[in-house]
């Protein structure tokens, strides 16, 4: 099982790497023409924030390394159970897949896909629920296309 301690340590390290990379990117910000000399440079504020975030990430990192937890009553694991993790993460994958299906084959295919796909990932076996979700998807489609005039 994924522990809160190691997940938070990895997340804090990723924040530190991200902050360093974004701060480096900010070095290349260039203002246009005459406005270039007006006021503070564009990189000032993002780099100030990134420095602050990096300090916070270091504190979080140290706290998790030394104490093992930050804050009170924190769960020791990221997910309640293996099954819960599987449901959550596979639903996430279904949502991302739905986005790419929309980009490739259009909204209608995505609307038909997303309901049954998320039901499958959540472990739903009742066919009535599948019917209800598909009917609701049809309702959403009709409201937007017929009532609000949205063109997909």
């Amino acid at each position, binding site marked *: 099982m994924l522990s*809160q301690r190691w997940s*938070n340590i990895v*997340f804090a390290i990723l*924040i530190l790497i991200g902050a360093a990379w*974004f701060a480096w*990117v*900010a070095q290349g*910000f*260039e*203002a*246009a023409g005459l*406005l270039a000399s*007006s*006021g*503070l440079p*564009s*990189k000032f*504020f*993002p780099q100030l*924030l990134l420095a*602050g*975030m990096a300090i*916070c990430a270091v*504190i*979080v990192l140290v*706290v998790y390394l030394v104490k093992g937890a*930050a*804050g009170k*009553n924190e*769960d020791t694991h*990221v997910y*309640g159970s293996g099954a*819960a*993790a599987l*449901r*959550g993460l596979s*639903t*996430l994958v279904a*949502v*991302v897949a*739905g986005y790419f299906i*929309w980009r490739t084959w259009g*909204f209608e295919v995505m*609307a038909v896909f*997303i*309901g049954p796909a*998320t039901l499958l990932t*959540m472990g*739903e076996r009742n066919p009535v*629920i599948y019917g209800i*979700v598909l009917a*609701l*998807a049809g309702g*959403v*489609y009709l409201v*937007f296309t017929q009532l*609000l005039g*949205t*063109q*997909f």
Partner: protein
Amino acid sequence: MFDLAAIGTAFVNLADPFTFLMLVLGIVLGLVIGILPGLGPPIAIALALPFTFYMEPVPSLVLLLAIYNAAIYGGSISAVAVGIPGTGAAIATVMDGNAMFKNGRGGEALGLSLTGSIIGGLISVLCLTFIAPVLATVAIKFGPREFLAISIFGLVVVVRVAGASLSKGLLMGGLGIFLTTWGLDELNGAERYTFGSYHLYEGIPLVPFLVGLFAVSEVLIGAEKALDKVRFDQTSLRVNLPGMKTLSRLKGNLMRSSLIGTIIGIIPGEGAAVAAFFAYSEEKRRSKTPEKFGTGIPDGIVAPETANNATVGGALIPTLTLGVPGSPAAAVLLGAFLIQGLAPGPTLFDERPDIMFSLFLGLFLINILLLFIGLVAIRFAAKLILVPMTVIVPTVLLLSVTGIYAVSNSLFNVGVLLGAGLLGYVVRKLGYSIAPLSIGFVLGHILENSLRQSITIADGSVAEFFNTPIGLGIYAALILTILWGPISDWLKSRNAGKVEDA
């Protein structure tokens, strides 16, 4: 201060059949979403936000305010009936509400929560109506240094209350502000983190980001426990409104909790849940029989329910007068103003007083109608509570992506929605709060612009930077707020020590 012509226009606006229909629809939708466990006011507002794109300002804002108000009350129904709070604001109601329900007095518990919610809501709207215009006349004199001070105050207070870990809260607040630096620099036109995409020239869009952060992350978390079954006694779902004798006995509690809710609502970040717990513990502290709290007594239901609904009017005071949201739900509400081309702040009172008074009058009407619609809604609540999460998850997901696409006609914005949802999901799973992230994202632009303008005005002088009496007052209030936690802990431990010595 009170423009009679604007008040007259507000009455005309609310008499419009479409506006009235939106008001009723908002109450119904808010109740439905509030009753469904897990979906709170920010999500309710976020889901309705895309529809307001097609409406005039008054009906759209009245719709969202009705949803906001009703969703907070709706959360108490599932809290009382099944012990699962529909919203975070109803967590404190579970203790006595559910205990009373289990004792066979479900009707009485639901009646008390409905009455408390409406009285709390009405008193807070009264405060909003009188305080907001006064504050707006003061705030109109604010310059960059004052706005910088108020934005820092708002953000730090949110971070302080958002979670047990200060460093985690600050990290999220900083991340929210950092994300607003993407796009063209407003002051000198420099491209920042656009990665060659013209979509990012105007920065990360506010509405898809907030909808993703609240709604998408919530349904992903909901998907994990989608197969959990809810069981409860449906026969007790009948409302029994308290009589005058009971109300008279509870009048002190109602007044105190209303004021606590309104004041806590005004403080940025101190949301409805904090107000509900504060009012509950205050009534318990004042009670001659504190041991009865938690066993199912009227005071234990009225206090949190009155206070949590009173935060609505309170949270709108800084939102409307300063453009600083008083709660995550108010942050999403700010998005609705921006969709309508309105910028909440002191100038809005000057430019569109008719809209402001329409909102105040609308809130009065919402609270009154909530009584009648709430009575009917409770009869159908049993069916709503039993709606499985497996139906809610795909429907909310589809509504979110479709709504965002309908507003912008842009798949990029749908990508932002899903990206924000993924970000919200990851950070929530790791024990971070998304409240500082959302408030930081709303306040980011104000913070950067006011900081840069303040530094330019100060021209390198620290004394000139702080040469603002209002700003200094706000910084002093901020320091007091930060120090209050340790001081109160010290006082408690000192008092506890005295009791033990005695």
